[in-house]
């Protein structure tokens, strides 16, 4: 019998012996796979390396991390899964794509965890270590068989690989070697350039003794050799030679470099997943830029330090995620009240509360917009790609200083840990502009001398003679004197609000993707852009008149959104946050709690939009969205 048929426990004996899929070599415009192991076995290194070397070959690539919420939970349990999904393509890849078509699994339990979240396509090819099936411990064998039974509902194609056995031929501790053998398997299957692969391995272990690289090169080669000998298929994703210089990094590294490019002096933070690694990156290199990461005693102190630095003329940012954001609200209110430039990066994760700390969600939008007591006008932007993570900080600094306000940047776990190549930025000295000068303040000028038309004013910085004043969170007049009068309070409010409206006038209308009229317009924000636009492409290829509109600014909104929506029969937001479904029990249009962008668009623009939102802790898959589009657009 062929080994490519689905597994079931009854005929477990025979199924996994031979490696004949009958698939042969096939060329794809893009293909995706996963490597999963127990935490600590290095699947991450394998997957990230595979992504990086593919990018170096000129492929489009996108990697997405699979991270347990504990550090090294007990092995061979579904919750211990650590790994990477990699999607490579002939052209640029903008998102993680759909369920993967190939998996390398170090054991059946971590595989099971992926099965349970529908990570694999129905016809996925699975390469799995054969060790467990015939393990001396009958408990393990039983677990294997139960797992196979559970997974037998899908048409997976099984290939047993002597992963550990082969690794042991090269190194003594297989825990530290299986991953590079697995990389070898991938290199054969995807026909990778062996020299580039070896360079990548050398880079991965550059901080270790040379012997380590040597051993891993051997493992890589062993993997390639084993695959060449035992597999009868290859997935060919030809690379196009890159036309421009590319960098490859994840969104948090892009934030870090963006901060360097923007001349940010201080990053004050308190550790929190998935934001911390921005500061890890900066802490490593900031000394070469005269900057400083300050790890504060808590998130309140972190934003306090940033605000204190900003007051004295330094450019400052604070980075955090949900629970930390919740703690910063009082200081945000103060920063807005005293009109102090400040950049606040929120790398969103699953909520509410501690929620799903390592997984993606887009649920902090309303909190950022409305989360402070009192009136708090501000700027909110959301990068939609890793490249935008880099560039948006530069923009944010300029806005924050020009308007004297807080700029929020909403990223998420998907952008934070995903990696993809993007064009090497051309630096501009203006981005790093030094702080304001310490010249004397002309007599008679006041620290909040608002332009009554625009609400904009210029600040004085300690050190400037004649500018002495005390900033205060109490209501204050143009001289920053405490004031309790109705007119002054109204004026301060109006000025702080007005400048946001004035800024809105400088924004361009977002351009619909796909076409500017039709049956359905999908509106999104943040990290889902790639997946949404891919779904739109697929829908249009099927003749469906779907388009999408992606918003970079959430406060203020860009102009022209309502006008763009008006050209479509239906409008629907798509977000990775919670929305009651319209057909859920007890849900009526009146009491329905909708997605956060939907709430904003309705409130601000009275757009009667539908709302699709899911809190699955996973990136949006284009295929899932395509299904939704097909449901919403009646078949012609």
């Amino acid at each position: 019998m062929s080994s490519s048929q689905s597994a079931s426990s009854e005929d477990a004996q025979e199924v996994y012996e031979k490696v004949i899929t009958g698939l042969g070599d096939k060329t794809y415009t893009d293909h995706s796979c996963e490597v999963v192991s127990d935490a600590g076995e290095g699947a991450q290194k394998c997957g990230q390396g595979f992504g990086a070397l593919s990018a170096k070959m000129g492929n489009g690539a996108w990697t997405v991390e699979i991270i347990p919420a504990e550090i090294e939970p007990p092995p061979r349990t579904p919750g211990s899964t650590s790994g990477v999904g990699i999607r490579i393509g002939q052209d640029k890849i903008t998102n993680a794509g759909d369920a993967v078509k190939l998996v390398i699994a170090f054991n059946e339990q971590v595989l099971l965890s992926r099965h349970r979240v529908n990570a694999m396509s129905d016809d996925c090819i699975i390469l799995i270590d054969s060790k467990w099936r015939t393990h001396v411990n009958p408990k393990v064998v039983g677990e294997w068989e139960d797992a196979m039974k559970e997974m037998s509902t899908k048409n997976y194609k099984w290939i047993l690989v002597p992963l550990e056995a082969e690794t042991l031929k090269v190194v003594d501790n297989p825990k530290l070697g299986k991953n590079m053998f697995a990389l070898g398997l991938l290199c054969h299957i995807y026909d990778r350039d062996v020299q580039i692969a070896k360079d990548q391995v050398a880079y991965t272990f550059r901080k270790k003794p040379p012997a380590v690289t040597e051993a891993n090169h051997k493992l890589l080669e062993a993997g390639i050799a084993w695959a060449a000998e035992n597999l009868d298929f290859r997935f060919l994703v030809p690379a196009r030679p890159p036309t421009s210089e590319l960098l490859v990094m994840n969104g948090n590294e892009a934030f870090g470099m963006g901060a360097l490019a923007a001349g940010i002096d201080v990053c004050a933070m308190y550790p929190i997943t998935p934001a911390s690694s921005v500061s890890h990156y900066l802490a490593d290199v900031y000394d070469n830029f005269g900057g400083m990461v300050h790890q504060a005693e808590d998130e309140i102190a972190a934003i306090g330090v940033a605000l204190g630095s900003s007051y004295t003329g330094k450019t400052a940012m604070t980075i955090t995620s949900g629970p930390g954001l919740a703690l910063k609200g009082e200081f945000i209110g103060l920063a807005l009240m005293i009109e102090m430039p400040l950049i606040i990066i929120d790398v969103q994760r699953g909520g509410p509360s501690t929620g799903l700390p390592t997984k993606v969600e887009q649920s902090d939008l309303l909190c950022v917009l409305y989360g402070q007591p009192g009136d708090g006008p501000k700027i909110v932007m959301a990068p939609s790609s890793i490249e935008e993570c880099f560039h948006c900080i530069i923009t944010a600094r300029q806005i924050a200083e020009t308007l004297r306000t807080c700029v929020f940047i909403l990223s998420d776990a998907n952008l934070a840990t995903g990696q993809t190549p993007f064009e090497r930025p051309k630096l501009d000295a203006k981005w790093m502009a030094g702080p304001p000068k310490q010249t004397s303040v002309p007599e008679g000028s006041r620290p909040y001398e608002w332009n009554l038309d625009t609400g904009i004013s210029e600040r004085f910085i300690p050190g400037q003679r004649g500018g002495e004043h005390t900033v205060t969170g109490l209501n204050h007049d143009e001289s920053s004197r405490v004031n309790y009068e109705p007119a002054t309070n109204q004026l301060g409010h109006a000025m702080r609000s007005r400048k946001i409206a004035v800024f809105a006038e400088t924004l361009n209308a977002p351009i619909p993707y796909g076409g500017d009229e039709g049956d359905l317009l999908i509106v999104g924000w943040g990290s889902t852009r790639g997946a949404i636009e891919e779904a739109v492409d697929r829908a249009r290829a099927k003749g469906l008149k779907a388009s999408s509109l992606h918003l970079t600014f959430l406060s203020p909104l860009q102009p022209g959104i309502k006008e763009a929506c008006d050209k479509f029969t239906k409008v629907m937001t798509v977000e990775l946050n919670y929305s009651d479904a319209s057909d859920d029990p007890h849900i009526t249009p009146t009491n329905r709690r909708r997605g956060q962008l939907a709430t904003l668009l309705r409130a601000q623009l009275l757009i009667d939009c539908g709302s699709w939102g899911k809190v699955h802790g996973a990136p949006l898959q284009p295929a899932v969205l395509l299904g939704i589009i097909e449901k919403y657009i009646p078949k012609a």
Partner: protein
Amino acid sequence: MDTSLLDISGAADERTFTANDYKGPTARWCPGCGDFSILATTRRLLELEQLAPEKTLFVSGIGCSSRFPHYLKTYGFHGIHGRALPLALGAKLRRPDLHVFVVMGDGDCTSIGAGHWIHAIRYNPNMTVLLLDNNIYGLTKKQTSPTTPVNYKTNTQPKGSYLNPLHPISVTLGVANASFVAQTADWIPAHLLATMRAAQQHKGLSFIRILQRCPKWTIDIFDAKVKTPDEMMILNHANGITDPKVQKMYKNQMEHDPSDLDAARALTGMTSHIPLGLFYKNEDAAIYNELRMNKSFTTEEKMANLEKEFDRYAV
């Protein structure tokens, strides 16, 4: 070190400042409030030390005491309740040229601000921290503070407060890196000034607890102290704070070596008298803002270094 904000264009500073040069709008505390005395002494200090107003920054939280910066003509940051210290640290970290003072109330510092207080002591940045301790929540109208005496009646604990007060100096001395810890009283201006001067000249964080009269809510607590100078015990030492006027005025004087941490801690348990003076000083404690100084770079250098970063991440 990034020096871009440090130099003032123009000639060397040859101004002389009088106490009046630091005078802000009329203070709005209650008649007889001890804060007035502290404000006046502060102006005196600024004059004595000739601190340029534009280089001087007062940071505070929220409370009667935290209105302090408004009443001076220097730079000021009237922050939020309990959070003056992080703001001040942020200011000092990249602007070592500024003279940073922090003013907090007892609720502000030892209740809602307790976490930042502990950590500021450990960071030990070079600044002067004044705790204006009136043993009560003044601005919110008489609620118990951590320093309120036990059994004292307040609006939230009308049958009397339940616990012995926290001793701000004792807590401070429990924290690694404490470097200057003193106690004084608003109604002894000479001692107050001498203490503040020593603090201002100390490198590192100088923490001064100032016993502060609040005639509105805790007049009974402080009246007794003001009227019985014999309750006070003045701490003297060659390396401590000595003011001849104070030495004449007060009957009780004792020698205390401020380098002796154990003795300093033991002093916080004294019940017979209220010790005033320098409890502890350690000039070798690490100063966080100095440790964090790093080289400054021109824009060109930064751009070149960033290009190197790009190279590391190049495909």
